[in-house]
């Protein structure tokens, strides 16, 4: 059992015992290896279900909105940033939540392990420090977990939560700066190449809305895509409709998306959803010096303005 797991359990036990919260939202081992899943612990007896490993990928912030009881939440850097946004947008009341921040070392991309080890070959996983121990039916392999992190985790700029009440784990060395080289590279492609790439990506979309459902910041009572008067976007998998859906969804997340990757993780067909979000994250930073989820005071760029803002290129005869 990792030190982090111990610390999380201890914190959870204390909070529940003191009656400070009614529920602790964290992770437990899934029924399959390399699949930790969210769990809701309401009594001390259940505290030992809680674990922490490299597979606690789900953004649990999305379980907080509309919750009537007082909750504690085990939050990675990205979860905490989503929480910051949710608090600012009045979806979560700060006093109603105790944030058990985890200094996150990044989540492991199971698909990369599977690619190396073979799909379904692993029956058990375990982590000690940077070592990831994977057991097959009659084999055992020790890998360096750092080599198998999600791309977004490798590039994570804020592994330590932006907002927490207590912190578990040790903040690591300085986090990388996000240079948005991915956005720049894609932007440097020829216009048609960009279009073809996105067209092909979006053509995969089956309009299941898993991305939206997984997103901690998609909490609208009625999504623009579900309305009928007007029906802005057709519900079929017509490419134009799918494109508009993803464009507007990304736009609606502009200045709010914290880059947790929940959408991408949830997508059953592997659409490169974050392509658009990443571009917007970059623009928010370039145009308005804004990074989502870092401050409770800072207003979302699209909900405010300055007189000397940069505008779009203008027709100016």
């Amino acid at each position, binding site marked *: 059992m990792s030190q982090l797991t111990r610390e999380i359990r201890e914190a959870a036990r204390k909070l529940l015992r003191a009656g400070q919260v009614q529920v602790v939202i964290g992770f437990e081992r899934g029924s399959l290896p390399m699949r930790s899943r969210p769990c809701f612990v309401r009594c001390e007896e259940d505290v030992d279900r809680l674990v922490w490993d490299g597979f606690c990928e789900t953004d649990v912030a999305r379980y907080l909105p509309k919750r009537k009881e007082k909750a504690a939440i085990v939050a990675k850097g990205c979860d905490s940033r989503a929480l910051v946004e949710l608090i600012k947008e009045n979806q979560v009341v700060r006093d109603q939540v105790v944030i058990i921040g985890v200094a996150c070392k990044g989540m492991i991309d199971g698909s990369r392990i599977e690619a190396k080890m073979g799909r379904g070959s692993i029956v058990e996983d375990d982590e000690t420090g940077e070592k990831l121990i994977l057991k097959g039916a009659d084999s055992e392999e020790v890998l360096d977990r750092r080599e198998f992190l999600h791309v977004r985790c490798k590039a994570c700029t804020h592994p330590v939560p932006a907002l927490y009440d207590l912190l578990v784990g040790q903040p690591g060395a300085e986090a990388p700066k996000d240079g948005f080289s991915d956005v720049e590279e894609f932007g440097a492609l020829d216009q048609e190449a960009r279009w073809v790439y996105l067209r092909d990506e979006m053509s995969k979309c089956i309009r299941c809305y898993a991305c939206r459902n997984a997103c901690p910041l998609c909490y609208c009572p009625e999504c623009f895509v579900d309305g009928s*008067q007007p029906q802005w976007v057709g519900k079929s998998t017509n490419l134009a409709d799918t494109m508009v859906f993803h464009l507007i969804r990304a736009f609606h997340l502009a200045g709010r998306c914290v880059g947790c990757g929940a959408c991408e993780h949830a997508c059953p067909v592997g659409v490169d959803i974050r392509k658009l979000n990443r571009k917007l994250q970059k623009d928010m930073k370039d145009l308005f010096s804004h990074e989502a989820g870092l401050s409770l005071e800072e207003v*979302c760029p699209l909900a405010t303005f300055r007189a000397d803002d940069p505008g779009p290129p203008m027709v100016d005869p």
Partner: protein
Amino acid sequence: MPHEDNIIQLPVPARKRIGAVMVVGAGVGGIQAALDAAASGFKVYLVDKRPAIGGKMSQLDKTFPTNDCSMCILSPKFIECATNPNITIITNTKVEGVEGEAGDFDVHLFEEPRYVAEEKCTGCGTCSEYCPVFVPDVYNEGLSKTKCIHVHFPQAVPAKSIVDATRCLFLTRKECQICVPACKNKAIDFHQQPKATTLKVGSLILAPGYEPFDPLTQSQYGYDRFSNIVTSLEFERLISASGPNGGELYRPSDGKVPHKIAWIQCVGSRDESSGCTYCSAVCCMYATKQVILSKEHHPEMEAVVLHNDIRAYGKGFERFYERAKNMAGVRYVWAKAAIVGERAETKNVVLRYRTNGTEVRDEEFDLVVLSVGLHAPEGNRDLAGKLAIQVNQHGFCESPAFSPMETSRAGVFNCGVFHAPMDIPDAVTMASGAASLASQLLWEERGTMVEEKVFPEERDVTGEAPRVGLFVCDCGTNIAKVVDVPRTVEYAKGLPGVVYAAEETFACSVDSVGHIIKTIEKEGLNRVVVAACTPRTHEPVFQNALREAGLNPYLFEFANIREQCSLVHMADKARATQKAKDLLRMAVARATLLSPLYRVSYGVTRSALIIGGGIAGMKAALSLADQGIIVHLIEKGNGLGGLAVKIPVTLEGGDVRRFVEGVIAEVSSNDLIEVMTNAELAEYSGYVGNFTSVVRVGTAGTPREIRHGVTIVATGAEELKPRESYLYGVDDRVKTLLELDEAMEKNADRFKDCNSVVFIQCVGSRDAERPYCSRVCCSHSVKSALKLKELKPEMDVYVIYRDMRTYGLKEDYYKKASDQGVVFIRYEADDKPEIQAVEEDGRAFLRLTATEPILGQRLEIDADMVCVAAASVPPAGNRPLSRLLKVPLNEDGFFMEAHMKLRPVDFATDGIFMCGTAHSPKFIDESIAQAQAAASRAMTVLARKELKAGGPISRVTPAKCSGCGVCRNVCPYQAISAAEDGVSVVNEALCKGCGVCAASCRSGALDLGGVSNNQTWSVIQAL
């Protein structure tokens, strides 16, 4: 909604008064006075000798210091006047005489013939197309031509043609008359005769405006000889987007872009040879504006302003001037320029001026702009004679001290440049103030002469399938000669929902409107589309037709096939017709989804809260109490009077002390005014018509809840204590202006031993910390200098200054001081005078060292006393108050108005107003004008029994709202708040219907009535 009827019945005067006001002169001042008086419940006659309203402001390109487009901000006011049923616009008309007395005047009017029947003319412009005679376009200052029969300018109200009688071939030679048959509405009438009429009104407001100085009267300006010398007003037209060159800056001689322009300041101002000794108050700033605009047109352009003192004294002016001065290629040169001549080949103009005291240089310019002063029109004396009122030696209106809007005749008021040269916001302020005085005189007659049109009850169309009626206008031939109207009508008949379509020759004519009303009834229409000109001018006409026919006015949709189709695609009839059909299809698509919108009424608490018991607050209180309004006047300090109690007299000699005491006595004895001293606002909520405040009163801080319909902020300003400047606070021989006033009043004898006094200007103003001008200090120093000379004529008095800003008629006192031997020495911002306390030969004095800028020599002045002209600063309490009221402060800490030009005393939040030095530093007279203006604006709310809210505004669908708050953040009016469950709620009284919230709401919870998501979507689907 709460409603308290706080009106107290005052004894009714014996004489019958007339609830109507005549405003003479329909420039921006006259327009504002008319709108205020009408909104306060009076019938208004807005009379102008010109063929359209708008005055000089309508000719300006932009306005300083915001560079707002002049016509953009003014033309909505035209429409307001034109559509207000209680304003009658009477153009081409002069006042011939007035009989009677305050409350009951007979005004004799004389109307010149237009030769066009106003009730028939639709302003379509066909007559102009046929007219063969070109005449100089007066609107463009003669820089371009228009037709002899023409509409005064494109946005003119009334939009009626007029014949130039001096050039019309028929009127001069009995030839032509081609326009008569060209007019399909038979509006042209050469039989029209001059008409004399008499109207009864209770009060008059005079706003005849100004004429720019005519440089032809003085040959030294070469205006008659050199083609590349223009006046500043001509320059406005030259750079205006609607001017003769379509906004391209060309010079007159060869139509080339001028690369080097000079502005010569004070042409016809501050100049005895022109007969005008006063300062025209606006030229420094308009020239600065023109410099900035020219640089925007041509960034590489060189601009030279040859000036005397730069008078950037108003709110935001100093920053504007600094901005211009620091632009590359811009030079401000303190010099008097002479026009030497013109280069024969290039037609460039050569100017000669002296720089650095001795050096004389000749410089060549592509274009020279004469910054001409504001003069009283010739007609002022005539008007004054006819009305039996006094004008001063300059031809401007005489007013009693401390009553700037009064004239020498009771019941006749004045505003704008008729009073003295001033800029637009000051004119607008006085206009509102004059309306307040008229309202105070006539308040018992409020509502007696206004008509409220009664419409039939609206038919409920819910559940009905759309039955769209469509009327396509020919606009004589303006539309029909380009768009194939019959085919368009046929096409429209097939559009979904359309049950009726017809062609109209002039849809807006009385006959056609009648036809529309009848058709709505006969065909059972429940939606109406008119395809004609622009909704911006004609929507109200047709909306009223719907109301006459018992339909909700919002069931109407306009298709603009004239301005945005036939007039701009004349050469391609097929495409224009196709476009017209497309626009109709889009309009019908929207129309079928239109739903009725309602305006709900709510009661008004007819009382006011005034914050601040200085002159401004007290005068506003009295203006309101005079009209039966209960006023709660709260003052932070112990007593009333504010800063004015420290000022003995004005520059003009008005006895401030006596005046203030009188006002305090009046306020204290007025039964309708409740004064609370040591009182501060603690809580504030509500909206226009119904505010609730909690005030903490007295040293105990007892909370007091007050309900009121309006709020007026009059928190004043303070004189800076400029510690660490010029030994102030260290040496008691250094005093501020107010301290010197006190010393001169209490201990005049002390000055008998005083041989030398030095004033230092701009202490704490116009610097990095306070980059604004405090406006009053130059005049104050002149006043104090004159007073010192009076106490001891042989005293040496010096004023060390940067620019003497004795603007307007105050200039005469500057000259007087100079004549009396007061020495004025200029200093540069980066070379401030220095002070030293010195003892020599047993005599103690203050030694001032300054650089004399003309010769560059260092001067030493030994003074017995030094007076620092310290800045006027906003009180520290402004910031917390601004947060409580949710109204903004500007970067200097003064309150920020809704619009710098046209809404000088309004906040953007309805129902909250400001006056006095809370707005910016100003003189007592100016504070009084603002106080009465604020009262006038307040009465536009309080005069009503009920206010209307709603109509095309935003609404929330609670089930779709997540409560995220983005709408609350983006709303420019703070009209959206969160209900207890977190869901957004729109305050109908505050929402203006911009729709920014609807465009920002991710979940579609907010939507805008009249431009809903669904309607817009359906328009897009019909593309």
